[in-house]
Each structure stands twice: as structure tokens, then as C-alpha cells.
């Protein structure tokens, strides 16, 4: 691990030359001072095993590891970081939760802490400390972080799933700016297809892309998997409308979207063959490196508003949790708070180039969001996001429904013509009822 860190330092140093960044020794000095005053005193000889999702943007990882070593210098606590891909985080964390050994902290996605709330350390004090200091939490933060009145996880950041489009293709299709409502959005997709500059959205088992945009499609038409009492209400005329909407879109997509995973649209967009999709900012970051022409011609937009008349976006939240069986609860709490302090968080978000969006209101001022206007829409995703629970509770049931791709499969079933409207809804309803029993 050690030489890994050193090596990535060297590589990342250029990427980190942004503003508000303390130079190496200054960061260590600040970290030491912070450790003196912080409300959590790490246990002597504490060691933290932390699992996080595998980086999307390399510089972000570098900045993260820099915090880890600053934390060690200040507190003497070794943080051993393990990277795992998106899809492996949840099973691995679950195994650890089940067996009670192996990890102290997990930085995961969506509602991970809610899969096993009884195994998560109560971090209300950390959340209150940070909220007070940094202008309060965005509303979605409480939904993601709290369970039964306690904070079981700290929502560190969100990555937005927003519209990525090619400006020239959109203009050629007859639109001056990106459509704000679903009806004209459909028109745009149709026109793009006609111009042979097609759009494409993942309909495969893509845990990030497919879940976010299809939940948006469902909610924008007023469909819901469950109501506020967790009763399954997916069988509704609104769901049927959403299904028709997605089917109409699908017929105008680039071929192959039913097999897409999270990486598919990135690759095709960067190559220049895809002109509209939903994704995090990683397409833009990759295009700046690999295909400048595409990067210069692309922009981002909020998801259009559907018949319900208000934004219904779902973005990918990244909460961090500490297991209650850790031997070093204070060290874990200290590290959680340490990550989110301005001296760390600002350069980190900067390094992520828009990939990570904050839940703490004070970070709106980070210049990353305004220095390049194309990144600006991603600033607000933590404020705009709903939770995968929809109207219902965000707990293990909602997490299971998302992980089992109930909504994604319902849309894919109908769009690809495997089932009719009734059949697609019936399959989803049956599965959902079982999960929400």
C-alpha cells in the first residue's frame, strides 16, 4: 500500500495544483492542529480498514490518498484503503456485516448503510458537527444518512446522472437549448435519430446509469414503486404512461442499449458515435483527454421535467458508514469528519473535476462549479436528488428493489417487446410485493 500511495502522489501532483490547496507540509500542519481540537480522539494504535468504490476519475483517488496520509501523520492512525468496483462493494460489505470482521468502514453507494442499519455505528455527533460548521446538509442528506432518528452513514458526495449531449447535434435537430420537458425531449431524441446522430440510454443491468435515468422516467410521469407506507403501487396508469414514453425513446435509440452496462455509453460517446445520453461527468473528463473535439462540442443539462411538473431526478449518492463492531469507533468518526473539512474537501472535489458533488451547503462556493460552466449543472445534484426509496422508506427493501433491477427490468421488458404493458408491470409488481412484504 505504501509505495502505491507514494507513486500516485507524484503522478497526481500536477492535477492538484488547484486553488485552496495546502502544500504538503502545510496540509500536515493543519491536520496536526485539527487533530488537537477535534472532538474525537482516536484510540491508541488504531488501524482502520476502509473499502471504497473504485475511482472514476484518477485525480480524485490521488487526492483521497493524500487525505489518508495526512490523517496518519496527524493522528498516527493507519487507514488501509481497499478499492472495489461498484458492483462488488455491496456484496463485500454485506459479507463483512454478516460476519462482523474484516472492515471498519465502507464508502459505498446509494443506500448501503440501510441494508444493515443495525450494524452501523451511530454517527449523529459527526453529522451535527459537520452540518453546523458547513451551512447545513442538503435535504437528501438526511434521507440517505438517517435511519430511526440516528445518522447511520455520512453522505459524502453524490455523482450526478445528468444529460450529456452534443451541442451541434442538438442544434441541427432544431433545438436552441436543451429541452426542459419530457415531451420535447422525446422530440429531440426522434430528431437526433433522423439526423443519424442518435441518442442512447442504458437499459441493461447498469447499476448507475440504468437505475438513475429509468427512475427519473418513472417518477416524471407520476409512477411510483411504493407509496409512503411502503405499499406497492406500481400498477397504475402513470406507470403505463412512463412505459410508453420509454418505449418511444427506445425505438429511437442507437441499437444495443438493452445490453449496455455503465461503461457502454461512455465509450461510444467519447468515440463520437453517440450524441445524447445520461451519465456522470466522467464522459466529459474522458473526452477532454481522449477526444477533444467531442469535449468541446458537448454540454450537460438537468433531466427534463415530466407531467408531474417538478424535477424527479435520481443521482448516485456515496454515503460512508462505520461498522459498530469496529475496534476504533473514534478513529473512524475522526476520519469521517476529517474528510469533509474544507481543507480536505475542497481540493478533493476539485480533483474530481465535477464527479463528486457535495451535500454540505457551504461547498457551493467551490470554484470548480463555475470555472467551467459545463460543470455547473452537477453542482446541484445533491440538492435535486431523490432517493431510490421513492415515496417509501429508504431501507433494505428499497435497496433490494434497486439491486434486483425491478424498475430497470420492467422498462426493458416492455421497451424490447418481451412483455406488454400489463405483463411488464405484473412482473415488477409481483417481485416488489415480495420484497416489500
Amino acid at each position, binding site marked *: 500500500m505504501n509505495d502505491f500511495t507514494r507513486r500516485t502522489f507524484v503522478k497526481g501532483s500536477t492535477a492538484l495544483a488547484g486553488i485552496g490547496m495546502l502544500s504538503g507540509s502545510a496540509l500536515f500542519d493543519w491536520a496536526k492542529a485539527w487533530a488537537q481540537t477535534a472532538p474525537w480522539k482516536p484510540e491508541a494504535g488504531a488501524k482502520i480498514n476502509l473499502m471504497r468504490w473504485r475511482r472514476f476519475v484518477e485525480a480524485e483517488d490521488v487526492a483521497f490518498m493524500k487525505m489518508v496520509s495526512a490523517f496518519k501523520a496527524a493522528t498516527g492512525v493507519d487507514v488501509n484503503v481497499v478499492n472495489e468496483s461498484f458492483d462488488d462493494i455491496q456484496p463485500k460489505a454485506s459479507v463483512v456485516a454478516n460476519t462482523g470482521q474484516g472492515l471498519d468502514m465502507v464508502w459505498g453507494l446509494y443506500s448501503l448503510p440501510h441494508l444493515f442499519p443495525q450494524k452501523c455505528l451511530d454517527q449523529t455527533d459527526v453529522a451535527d458537527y459537520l452540518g453546523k460548521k458547513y451551512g447545513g446538509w442538503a435535504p437528501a442528506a438526511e434521507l440517505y444518512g438517517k435511519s430511526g432518528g440516528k445518522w447511520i452513514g455520512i453522505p459524502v458526495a453524490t455523482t450526478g446522472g445528468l444529460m450529456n449531449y452534443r451541442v451541434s447535434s442538438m442544434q441541427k435537430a432544431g433545438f436552441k437549448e436543451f429541452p426542459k420537458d419530457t415531451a420535447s425531449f422525446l422530440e429531440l431524441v426522434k430528431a437526433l435519430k433522423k439526423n443519424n446522430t442518435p441518442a442512447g440510454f442504458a437499459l441493461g*443491468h447498469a447499476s448507475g446509469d440504468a437505475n438513475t435515468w429509468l427512475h427519473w422516467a418513472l417518477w416524471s410521469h407520476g409512477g411510483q414503486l411504493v407509496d409512503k407506507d411502503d405499499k406497492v403501487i406500481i400498477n397504475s396508469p402513470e406507470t403505463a404512461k412512463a412505459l410508453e414514453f420509454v418505449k418511444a425513446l427506445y425505438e429511437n435509440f442507437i441499437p444495443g*442499449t438493452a445490453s449496455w452496462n455503465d461503461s457502454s455509453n461512455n465509450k461510444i460517446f467519447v468515440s463520437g458515435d453517440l450524441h445524447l445520453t445520461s451519465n456522470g461527468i466522467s464522459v466529459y473528463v474522458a473526452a477532454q483527454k481522449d477526444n477533444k473535439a467531442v469535449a468541446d462540442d458537448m454540454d450537460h443539462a438537468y433531466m427534463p421535467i415530466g407531467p408531474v411538473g417538478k424535477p424527479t431526478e435520481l443521482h448516485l449518492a456515496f454515503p460512508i458508514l462505520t461498522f459498530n463492531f469496529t475496534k476504533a469507533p473514534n478513529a473512524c468518526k475522526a476520519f469521517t469528519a476529517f474528510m469533509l473539512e474544507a481543507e480536505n474537501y475542497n481540493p478533493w472535489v476539485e480533483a474530481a473535476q465535477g464527479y463528486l458533488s457535495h451535500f454540505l451547503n457551504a461547498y457551493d462556493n467551490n470554484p470548480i462549479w463555475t470555472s467551467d460552466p459545463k460543470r455547473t449543472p452537477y453542482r446541484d445534484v445533491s440538492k435535486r436528488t431523490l432517493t431510490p426509496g421513492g415515496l417509501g422508506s429508504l431501507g*433494505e427493501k428499497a435497496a433490494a428493489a434497486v439491486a434486483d433491477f425491478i424498475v430497470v427490468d420492467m422498462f426493458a421488458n416492455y421497451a424490447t417487446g418481451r412483455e406488454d404493458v400489463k405483463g411488464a408491470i405484473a412482473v415488477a409488481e409481483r417481485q416488489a410485493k415480495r420484497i416489500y412484504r
Partner: protein
Amino acid sequence: MVDVSNKSTAKAVGRRPPQQIEVSAWSQLKSNRTWLGYWFMLPALAILFLFLAYPLGLGVWLSFTDTRIGRGGVFIGLENYEWLQGDSIFWLSVFNTLLYTIVASAVKFAAGLYLALLLNKHIPFKALIRAAVLIPFIVPTVLSAIAFWWIYDSQFSILSWSLKKMGLITQNIDFLGDPWNARWSTIFANIWRGIPFVAITLLAGLQTVSPSLYEAATLDGATPWQRFRHITYPLLTPIIAVVMTFSVLFTFTDFQLIWAMTRGGPVNATHLMATLSYQRGIIAGQLGEGAAIATAMIPFLLGAIMISWFGLQRRKWQQGSDND
């Protein structure tokens, strides 16, 4: 070892069946061979018990509970199975698994045997070619699955590109986005990976067939097919039975290939029982249900194995093991 020079004489003695000698040797054996047998079995059984039977028991128990990841469950009897009985996705995965197993195993057997026969002939660079044939088996499955995924890409597929250049198609083939295309594509990848193992093991079997038999048959005017049918195939059956039984097993429980290429998509069209059990049990956290799907594989698996084992295993071998 016994004195080598004595062997032929000893053999002659052994052949002549002198009752008294054999009886005493055998009785000496009988007195301790059961215990010896147990000692010999110990390492295998210990490992299998500690790391297989015990966890398996845990797994079957799980299938009768509503356990979720992170919290224990209570006994709910057959509820999981009753639920699966009415679950269209489960039955789709059963269909996919059977299709996948039957088609892939049959092709692997036919092509593998054919390849083994070809490799058994006199060819230049024999060793090199034999080693090359093994390559698909050697490359880590996950990585070859990713390579196949890349070859089947909806946009950058080399196959689509070549066919387009040849003017055979005008649009990219949607290899993994169309249900049937996806099934055939994944089956092909499985066959690709499985052929070397079948071929090389059968080749090993072929080499044990005495060439004198062929020579005799050729002199009697037997056609190549007759030689294959009446000499090669019968002598090869024990090895075929083992290889095919295990080939069926590996195909039936395949996981990596599907998981890396399609995740069971598009729209569950390539979900096998193993991948569905992983998705429901591990990813979605419904351990009990996942365990039930996995347990439900066992009867199907048993059936598949019975067919390949008893179907292929001829009386000859059984007699061999019963008589001597």
C-alpha cells in the same frame, strides 16, 4: 518396488492362478485394507467436509429461511420455493440454463472429439499446435469474457466491422442486446473456452488406444468411420463419460462468463440459475431466496449428470470394476 527382473516370472506365476498363493495374498489384504482405505481417504474427506459439506448444509438451511444479508432469518419452510414456482424470471433462467448446458455441451463434445482426432494424426509442429489449442483454457476466464464482450460490442465489434466491410451486413449486429443473439453469443464463448479441455483430455485417451487394433482393422478393410465407431469410441467411453460429465457440470454452473459479459441481460434473457442466485442472494441481499435458487439447481444438475454419466458409461467399464 519389487525386483524388476522378477516381474515377468512373477507375472507368469500370477497368471497361472495358483489358488493357495492368491488366497493368502488376498486374505492378508482383506485384513487391513478397510482401515488402509480410510486412511487414504482422510485428506480428501477432511477438506471436503470442512469446506464443502458444512457450508453446503448452511446453504441448504438458508434456503428454508428468510435470511437477508446482515441479519439472520427465521425458518419459513418452503415459502422461498413456492415463490419461485410462480416466478417467470426463475423459469426463464431454468430454460436458459438447460439450453446453455445442452447446446454448449453437445457442441463441445462433438467439436472436441473431432479436434482430438485431428490432433492425434501425424502433423508437423504437433506439440506447438497442441499447446496453442489449450490457450482458450489458459487465459483467465474473466479476462477472456471481457475480450469477448469487446468482440461482441454493439458499436466497436470487430465481427460486425468485418462483415460490414465484406458487404454482408449493413448494420452492426446487436450481439448482446437481442435476447437470442445474446444467448448464442454467450453459448459460443462458453464453447470456445470449453473445447480445449475436452479435446486435450480425449486426446490423452486416444493415445492409450493400441495402434495394433487400427492396423488389424485397416487390414480387414474397415473404413475410417467403422474404425472410429467400433474401436476408438468404445475404448474411449470411460474417459468420455468423465470428461462429459464434468463438462456438463461446468457448463451448468457457469457464472463468470455470463456475469462478465451480460450480467444476465438483456432483460434476463441470459440469466442462468447461478447468476440469478447470485443477483438475488448476494447483490439484492435476499440470501434465503438466492440459496433456494441454488438448491433448486441440484435436482436439475443431478438429472443432467445422470444422463451424461449413465448414458455414456458402457457396461464394459462397470464389468471391469465388478469382476476383477
